């Protein structure tokens, strides 16, 4: 009996929390920005679970070039995507100073290999500019929008596109 009550209570608390979170997200957003070569990119901080240093990955056979392999994240097998290669900016030369941003993409946890993490940005959604059409499929596919912050241009990466297409699996 007491079980049921506590369940009920926690359920209520949770929904209350969710609601306040939602309202906040409607007003402003926090983003993490990072560098790949000379360009700056960002992702929503809510999708970032942690940031860690580079460790050598175990390569996966028969996978695209931008999949660097898998590493051990406290017992979970984490695939590492070389974001530079994915965005067709050339392969990252991973060094001890490279960074892995561990992100939630749908139900999956995926590590993104980037050169360095630079900033946490707080923005309101109206600051996001639509991506100008520069006749480049890669940009069209992976850039959700642009942000101008202190004279820097930061591209918002569409995380849901970075994993390889799962068609092969479905077929």
């Amino acid at each position, binding site marked *: 009996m007491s079980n049921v*009550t506590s369940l*009920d209570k926690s359920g209520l608390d949770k929904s209350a929390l969710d609601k306040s979170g939602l309202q906040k997200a409607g007003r402003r957003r926090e983003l993490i920005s990072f560098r790949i070569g000379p360009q700056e990119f960002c992702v929503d901080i809510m999708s970032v679970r942690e940031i860690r240093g580079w460790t050598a990955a175990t390569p996966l*056979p028969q996978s695209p070039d931008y999949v660097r392999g898998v590493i*051990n994240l406290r017992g979970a*097998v984490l695939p590492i995507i070389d974001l530079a290669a994915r965005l067709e900016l050339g392969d990252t030369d991973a060094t001890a100073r490279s960074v892995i941003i561990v992100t939630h993409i749908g139900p999956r946890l995926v590590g993104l290999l980037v050169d360095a993490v630079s900033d946490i940005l707080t923005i309101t959604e109206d600051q996001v500019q639509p991506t100008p059409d520069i006749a480049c499929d890669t940009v069209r596919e992976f850039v959700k929008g642009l942000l101008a912050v202190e004279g820097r241009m930061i591209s918002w990466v569409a995380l849901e596109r970075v994993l390889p297409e799962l068609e092969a699996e479905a*077929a």
Partner: protein
Amino acid sequence: MDPLEAIKATFFQECDELLADLESGLLELEGGGGDIETVNAVFRAVHSVKGGAGAFGLEPLVRFAHVFETTLDDMRSGKLATEPAAVKVMLRAADVLADHVSAARGQGVVDEAGSLRLVAELKALCGGPAAAGADGDDEVVMVDTEVEDDGFGDFDFTPVIVEIDAPAEAVAAATPTWRIGFKPSRAMYAKANETALLLRELDRIGACQVTLNADDLPDFDALDPEESYFSWIIDIETDQGDAAIREVFEFVEDDCEITIEATGAPVSLDDPFASLDTPALAADPEVEPEAAPSAPDDDVMALLERAKLAAAEIQATTPAAAPAAAAPRAAAAPAPAAALHPADGGDAKTAAGTTIRVDLERVDRLIDLVGELVINQAMLTQRVGESGLARSSTVSVGLEDLEHLTREIQDSVMAIRAQPVKSVFQRMPRLVREVAAMTGKQVRLTTEGENTEVDKTVIERLSDPLIHMIRNAIDHGLENPDVRVAAGKPAEGVVKLCALHRSGRIVIEVSDDGAGINRERVKQIALNKGLIAPDATLTDEETDNLIFLPGFSTAATVSDISGRGVGMDVVRRQVQALGGRISITSNPGKGSTFSLSLPLTLAVLDGMVVGVSGHTLVTPLTAIIETLQPKTNDVRLLGPNGAVLAVRDAYVPLVDVGAVLGYSKGPTDWTTGVVLLVESEVGGRAALLVDAIQGQRQVVIKSLEANYQRVEGIAAATILGDGRVALILDVDALIDVRRKDARRSAAPPAARLPLAS
């Protein structure tokens, strides 16, 4: 989740357990075992299902459960003997009850005709009175649902003289009357029993005159909302004797004071006890919060508010005294509380004390973490070893203790996931009954070793192959009764299901005492379907195992049960997917035995760690027949870039693992490295060429699909002692990949495109 939905989900979970109890109890009775306690347990199971179902307004389920319960009640009271024929009907009733539960849950539908047939059979078992009783109890059900609908909204009752009328014709002039004194304790309410329901039950037995005694009710300030203050005096006219009355109170007799005395003459309606000078109204509001502690807090507060108002009102309007009141609705008001306690059987209580339900994800997380702990500890040991500390140093000794501890933790955690195969075996008796009924064969199922434990992941995936094997055993294995009798066997066939541990694996055997495999026919069918060459000479064992070939079905007519084109090859594939093996042995005229061997867990695997082009890979040990260092002249080149290995005069295709996985480029040097001779279930034997063997160890299996996707040729991943991820080879797929590659490069470009996906 909506609280009510959550409770409902719990109810269905409990239903599963109750149905399992019900079935095992009935099976015990069928086997001649069991005593009155077993009958009681069976009765309680059905009763609890009915009670919960009533609370949720699941009408069809309640109706069926009620008839079932009534019949069981007769068995409990000894009116109906626990003879096999009756128990058989009940077993089928248990199946239908399970169907009703599934239907109520929104899964599947109930075969209405079958349900009605069983209702008739059950009623026939216990004769006329049961049918009459059924109608009465349906009414009880209506009370449950009605009260639930009303919720707490209908609180504004008015004082009424107590009278729960019995049908006038039921009151015979000279019917004996009884006076029942009933004082429930707080424990009775705590167990979600309900006075109103008891009164309704009594009303079914005979005409009742109910009097409430609320003398013990303290002032509002002194009132303990969880205490029971009321007692009742019930005058009842019944010719069913005091046993029938006692039966009504059976479930609560430990939690109340009860006196039953014969009073002889019928009582008149204006009995002086019918009115007691008590402000009874003020009391009832408290009854509700008392019995409904699971209601959200604010509801309780609201009720207390209303209770205060009600009390004030009573004082204002009837300052001196109010007639005693216990209108049916008022008395029934705490029923929602009963509704929240769907299964208040004694069994559920004791079970709750010894087991807990845990989300599997939490256990898996724990297993992951313990795996990490083991890896960390191994790394630490390695570092300490490298630092040159003496083995006798306190650090090394402490590390050794740590190692023992971590191993013990790992074993204990794995044990959490281990479950007896009973949960799967329990589903089989029903299957056997159904298949037996469909085929018109007589079958008895015996089980052995149902407490054998195996990892939950294995349990979950065991049921499909088992169902298939049992269907096969009955449909194809056992003969028709007349054939059996002609062959000098008992008409009833026996299917035996048996589980045991053997050398770190679980072995499950399904055997029948049927005719065994008709080898001539099997050969003929295999020949007709082009599965074997006409001149093939096969041993008996090889012939028996032909039935596992894809597209093989021995039934002359494709039956509803094991036909449909899915044959034993599907079973074999399912079993192989679990890392297991299946085989059959048959003895003509005596029967066949399917034997299924599975790893105890899908969480760990015994593997051989090998190096390939600078990468570390793990090969499942179960696939490896032997390892060997090939001699230069054993390797024969075949075609432009293929090679075979001569193994004792047989040529086995060589597979360069590094090249297939894309780790090494360029032509293969077939003569260096080590060869793992593997048995693939799809492609026969193959020789895998690797650079070196690093050792043999047990590894924890990690899914690649969880965060990435399937990779061809790779079964899963694991984490080695150095903390790095190593991939586990999928031997079958590896050989398959190689073949596909060969076909692909041979295929014309146009045909390549669809394949490329």
